[in-house]
């Protein structure tokens, strides 16, 4: 049992809480009057808890703020109802079709917007649901228009027609569906996808550079959310026996309510939407019954004011009080069999070939026709004064930006044009100047994200990550989150994360900035060890002594152009280099 829970990353205390909740919900369903008002409200609460949990998959886990999840909900409600009326398809089958339509709709909204800034997804969801609402209102022949659509009552085919006496059967169906969405949430939260989503929430760029296909991760989250949301639309239609465009495609009735429940309970927390829905749905029913006519505006006013107050006072929701109080499960770690490097180019053979690399920003040519070759197991120093184009070159090599002209070829494979995560998969990874860590995540989780690029399971990724942490000399328990580390340890973690992706080529962007001489010596020692394991390394560094000490060869740049290349001593004595960069004070450096 405890082994099983550990596999799910659920601690014993958490499992007990879940069990108690399940028992309480089942007991409520059995004890309440089957055709009473209370069970009806509770059924709606569970239904909305499920739908809000599905919203949380994007809004909470993937940081995609949807203002139009009613689009999926309404599509699901209309699809199953129309199939039932016109083709006699059982709503159970209709629910499956609805889920499929929800997934398709999620791709239609997601594919054009995922590579853009988050606001575009928000606006697209808003537009999509309005479009559907207008179409549903207009095509009255199909949807009944504003009058709505009733589900035909078939008293003799109860189960097949998804129609039951009283609320109790609906309640347990809703509860079962809620369990499914919660299970998906657990998968998101504790599984590999959850690590990737948390990483991209922290820093999309660093996640990409660590091999996370951020677009894919977001599309998967959106697809799960859309499909499940549509299934809840079907359940809603069956439970209410009636749907109309303004309700099921409604901004206030569905889209905003789901978000409000989630925010109230705790956004991004597995049980947040559940708590929020259980509070908000009964409250909403009470308000609707109490404030009628013009005073309905009063209840809307209070809702708005409460939403504002909630965001200002407790933006993480009610459950955030409990979060962190429950003991967490000890993570599983596979036996350390992983080997850090995958490089198989023999030392001295050309590994990475850069040809005529050029990047133009408007009138400025940041990198101008730069060509060089990196050999297997070689340490290459890239030097130059500020603004020479070193960091831009790194950004281009790692696929985080695309060159205007020129190419980068790794062992015969063209990297130019590929997204950063694909470049990382092929084996070129960069660290970030001034570090770009996943601040809210633990030290171990920072490297686990990168380890998932090479390992199918979290346990294996942890083993690989721990190996990398040991290599850089960073204790995984030094601080609860990466955000609390000091500068030196941040640099260590930055390198460890890059190393965990098992790169063939490691690009170190000022990885020794701000280190004391002793720390620098340790860092140099580490870089030599990495090379010894088979990696080829390019270092961009301002610390000239360090570069000269560690590099086999040096490429010098100025104003975007390569001005010299060769052994450290040769480059250091090169007149152009001395003139542009080293200056008088460094002349004796070599």
């Amino acid at each position: 049992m405890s082994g099983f829970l550990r596999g799910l990353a659920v601690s014993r205390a958490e499992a007990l809480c879940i069990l108690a909740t399940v028992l309480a919900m089942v007991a409520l369903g059995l004890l309440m009057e089957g055709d009473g008002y209370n069970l009806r409200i509770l059924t709606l609460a569970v239904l909305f808890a499920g739908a809000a949990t599905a919203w949380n998959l994007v809004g909470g886990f993937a940081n995609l703020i949807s203002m139009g999840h009613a689009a999926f909900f309404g599509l699901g409600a209309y699809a199953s109802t129309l199939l039932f009326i016109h083709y006699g398809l059982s709503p159970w089958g209709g629910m499956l079709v609805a889920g499929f339509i929800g997934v398709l709709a999620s791709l239609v909204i997601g594919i054009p917007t995922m590579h853009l800034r988050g606001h575009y997804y928000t606006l697209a969801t808003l537009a999509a649901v309005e479009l559907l609402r207008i179409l549903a209102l207009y095509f009255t022949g199909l949807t009944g228009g504003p009058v709505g659509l009733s589900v035909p009552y078939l008293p003799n085919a109860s189960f097949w027609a998804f129609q039951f006496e009283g609320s109790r059967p609906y309640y347990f169906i809703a509860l079962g569906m809620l369990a499914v969405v919660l299970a998906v949430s657990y998968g998101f939260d504790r599984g590999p996808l959850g690590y990737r989503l948390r990483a991209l929430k922290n820093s999309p760029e660093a996640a990409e550079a660590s091999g996370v296909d951020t677009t894919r991760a977001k599309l998967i989250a959106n697809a799960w959310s859309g499909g499940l949301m549509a299934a809840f639309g079907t359940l809603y239609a069956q439970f209410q026996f009636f749907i109309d465009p303004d309700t099921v495609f409604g901004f206030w009735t569905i889209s905003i309510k789901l978000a409000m429940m989630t925010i109230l309970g705790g956004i991004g927390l597995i049980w947040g939407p559940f708590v929020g829905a259980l509070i908000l749905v009964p409250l909403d029913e009470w308000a609707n019954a109490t404030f009628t006519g013009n005073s309905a505006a009063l209840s809307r006013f209070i809702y708005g004011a409460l939403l504002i107050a909630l965001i200002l006072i407790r933006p993480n929701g009610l459950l955030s009080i409990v979060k962190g109080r429950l003991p967490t499960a000890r993570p599983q770690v596979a036996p350390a069999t992983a080997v850090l490097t995958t490089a198989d180019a023999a030392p001295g053979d050309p590994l990475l070939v850069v040809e005529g690399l050029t990047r133009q920003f408007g009138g400025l040519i940041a990198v101008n026709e730069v060509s060089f070759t990196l050999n297997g197991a070689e340490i290459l120093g890239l030097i130059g004064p500020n603004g020479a184009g070193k960091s831009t070159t790194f950004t281009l090599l790692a696929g985080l930006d695309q060159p205007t002209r020129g190419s980068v070829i790794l062992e015969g494979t063209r990297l130019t044009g590929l997204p950063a995560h694909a470049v990382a998969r092929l084996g070129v990874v960069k660290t970030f100047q001034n570090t770009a860590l996943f601040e809210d995540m633990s030290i171990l989780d920072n490297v686990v994200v990168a380890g998932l690029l090479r390992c199918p399971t979290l346990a294996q990724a942890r083993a690989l990550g721990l190996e990398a942490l040991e290599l850089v000399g960073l204790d995984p328990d030094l601080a609860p989150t990466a955000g609390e580390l000091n500068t030196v340890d941040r640099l260590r973690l930055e390198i460890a994360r890059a190393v965990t992706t098992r790169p063939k080529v490691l690009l170190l962007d000022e990885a020794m900035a701000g280190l004391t001489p002793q720390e620098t010596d340790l860092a140099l020692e580490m870089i030599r060890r990495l090379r010894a394991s088979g990696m080829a390394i390019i270092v961009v560094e301002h610390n000239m002594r360090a570069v000269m000490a560690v590099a086999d060869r040096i490429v010098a740049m100025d104003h975007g152009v390569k001005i010299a290349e060769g052994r450290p001593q040769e480059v250091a004595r090169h007149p152009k280099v001395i003139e542009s960069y080293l200056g008088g004070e460094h002349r004796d450096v070599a």
Partner: protein
Amino acid sequence: MTEQILQAIVNGILIGGVYAVLAVGLALVFGVMEIVNFAQSEFVMLGMYIAYAVFAAVGLDPIAAVPIVFLAVFAFGAAVQRLLIQPVLRAPMVSQIFLTVGLSFVLVAGAQLLFGATFLSVVTPYQTAALTFGGLQVSVPYLLAFLASAVMAALLWAFLERTDMGRAMRATSQNRTAAQLMGINPTRIYMIAFGLGTGLAGVAGAVILPYAYVFPTVGHNYSLVMFTVVTLGGLGSVSGAVVGGLVVGVIHAVSAVFLPTQLQNVVVFAIFLATLLFRPSGLLGAKA
């Protein structure tokens, strides 16, 4: 048919001018503080009610009341920024979005509690007047709304280009950190930018009052058009919002010639989605 289309184009430009002023406010706020104000269209409603109240009290024409409306909404917007938006500037996007959604609910419900759900309108001597140019009709209230919007846009341009505060605002929108290092106080800039953005929405409300009814949810009629305009113009681009406003106004009006009224907005969504697919950085290719 040709005449109908020409007429629609004229109307579209006149209405598009108002869309432009409305969207410019949204774009300005996004450009400066990276917040999409989902309550922006409620400030249109607010402007309409203030203009209506001024008209009801002293009989001042809504166009003449533009300075009053602007100042009132500006002050309200600046206060909202200071009290509600400023605390969430560094918060996650979800907090920022739903804070403005909550604000939208409060404003609509507040208007309903104060004024009731009835449709209100003003009576002006030029309400039904129209100028005729060789078969083309130019409605006087539309024309006045357009001219007032154009003056407002010109004043905004002069402010952004010619004053220190305007330059500081543009600098902040280009690079927040750098602007701060240059000694620009961002808190003050944010407050004024938000006041300006909402004030412009209020002005748009005042100038349409001679030809449109005001009621608590009137803003909803404009919110989607407005988001389409700023997306088309490139989120955060002020000049793009002006061009986008005119383009959407014309397409909206021309599509009414071919499509039933209920489907008019479908064309707006088509523009919105096409922009996302083919030109996400907007017509003028500003930052995306």
